[in-house]
């Protein structure tokens, strides 16, 4: 799916504009192409428009939550295989309890491909991305 020059594209969804900007800058500096949205309800449209190779998203956002977005991504056959990395202000266990990520198992939807707690360690983020791309065989970042 990686578009021009085989450089993977990452879509960042977070209601904090500063975090979107930060992650875009980091990822671009690390050779990825990026797109960012700050509202969950714009995210679905962005997914089909940008055709990202990976989605980096917050799980708790105003209005429609990240969980809703995640479900929609996984239910749509065209986007179901895009790796999703969750970034959250809470720990994974807390999110599971509060956001009912456990419900995904009941719906037989796969769990997110990775989980990073804010504040995000940049080397860890890059490492996680590289591992995910390797396992999904999506091309190389352009450094």
């Amino acid at each position, binding site marked *: 799916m990686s578009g021009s020059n085989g450089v993977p594209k990452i879509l960042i969804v977070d*209601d*904090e*504009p*500063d*975090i979107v*900007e*930060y*992650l875009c*800058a*980091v990822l671009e*500096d690390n050779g990825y192409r990026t797109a960012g949205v*700050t509202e969950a309800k714009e995210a679905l449209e962005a997914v089909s428009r940008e055709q990202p190779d990976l989605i980096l998203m917050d*799980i*708790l*956002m*105003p*209005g*429609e*939550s*990240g*969980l*809703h977005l995640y479900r929609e991504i996984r239910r749509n056959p065209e986007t179901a295989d895009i790796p999703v990395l969750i970034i959250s*202000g*809470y720990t994974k266990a*807390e999110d599971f309890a*509060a*956001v*009912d990520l456990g419900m995904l198992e009941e719906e037989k939807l796969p769990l997110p491909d990775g989980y990073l*707690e*804010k*504040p*995000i360690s*940049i080397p860890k983020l890059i490492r996680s991305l590289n591992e995910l791309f390797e396992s999904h065989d999506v091309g190389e970042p352009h450094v």
Partner: protein
Amino acid sequence: MSDTRQLLHDHLFDQAPIMIAVLDKDFGVVEANARFQNLFGQWRGRHCYEILKGRGSPCDRCLAAWTFADGQVRVCDDRLQLSGDVTSHFVVRVAPLTSEEADGEPHLIWIASNANEAGSLLRENEVLFERAPSYITVLDRDLRIIRANKRMRETFGRAWGRRCYEVYKRRDRPCRVCPALKVFETGEDQTSTQVGVSATGEETHYIVKASALSRDEGPDGSEVKYVIEMATDVTHLHMLEKEKLEAERLAAVGQAVAGLAHGIKNILMGLEGGVYVMESGLKQNQTAKIERGMQMLDRNVQKISDLAKNLLSFSKGRVPEVAMTDPADVCREIHELYSDLARQAGIDLSLDLQRGVRPAPLDAAAIHTCLANLVSNAIDACQMSENKNCRVVLRCFEKNESLGFEVIDNGCGMDYEVKKKLFTTFFTTKGAGGTGLGLLMTRKIVQEHGGRISVESKPGQGTNFRILLPRERLPEPGSGTDNGTGGREAGPKNAKK
């Protein structure tokens, strides 16, 4: 006089409505009255066990034998055989009979009376009254205690002849709300919750029910002569309730502190981002990027400053000031405060004040903060919504002895995940705009008033926040509620904002 007495004795023996017999030490009946003979038949030359039990030998557990042995008077219930093989219940009394004419031979006087249903009931009532695990008193029209049961005497000390308010409350005049006076006045049963002082000086909480015990036909018709007050001690429940309230308050503060770390994470990341973008701009010599980095730093420094201010006011708090407050007044203040803001945003902010909502002991400034938070949230929710005809309604009402407030909007609403997270931790969905403290603060205030806050919401349709403050759990007017530091402020203060 002594003739009359002798005459009376002679007649009483045969005419008293009881059965009397005299026994010798072999349990032979040596004398009996006419009633004994009528009921149990021929007695001369026979033993009591033959006559009364139809036995050929003395009973295994024999009252008479024990009394012969120790000279003590004994009373018991017994089933005895009447002539004609019928048995019936009796109360039997056995006592030593000492007489000079009895030649020094020991004798017993045996007396039995019919144990009829009224007698049994009477005794049951005696036991009920005396042994009931409640405080029971009978009061006359002067509020003097003419009977008090064991538990009452044990807890409150000497009661008989004293006035109820002296004994229960250590007061020198009747209580402001007196269920007994109300019963004397109306004849109707009354129930109320009271706080008394025990003989050992401890606060005692009880629920008392007062009922008319007897009526007299006076010149103005029937009037209640005596009132019986029956009270259940609920001191333990009251303590539990108090401890629970305390725990809820502490939990609200605890959650705020625990959640603080989460709130800081987003800001920290914003700051890291600002530094990163600025450095990256410097490296790439891009002025625009440097500026963006600077703006990010600015915004997040501002956010941490706001957070610190809010947090201080949340954790340190102000001393709660409780005074009788008209809830409708607080609502009107909020309406006035936000009506301009709402109008500018094209939102219809209206008031719905139910008639007859009574003043209540509230920390008015705190309730003001509470409602301001909710109305401000509702306006934000409307602004985030695509709905063009947004409205926010602030309601004040009375329901089931609770004072209620509601803030209803038809804004963007929340889904299940957001709702669940609302009060549990330091949480905001407002991104740059929120600190995550507003609702925690709101909940803390509601809990300090002994109430509950709940929320109903549907994404895209709107939200309804409801605060219910049970009147019986509201703080005392003129006293400070505990602010979680263990301190207590007292004294009437005007808490109106």
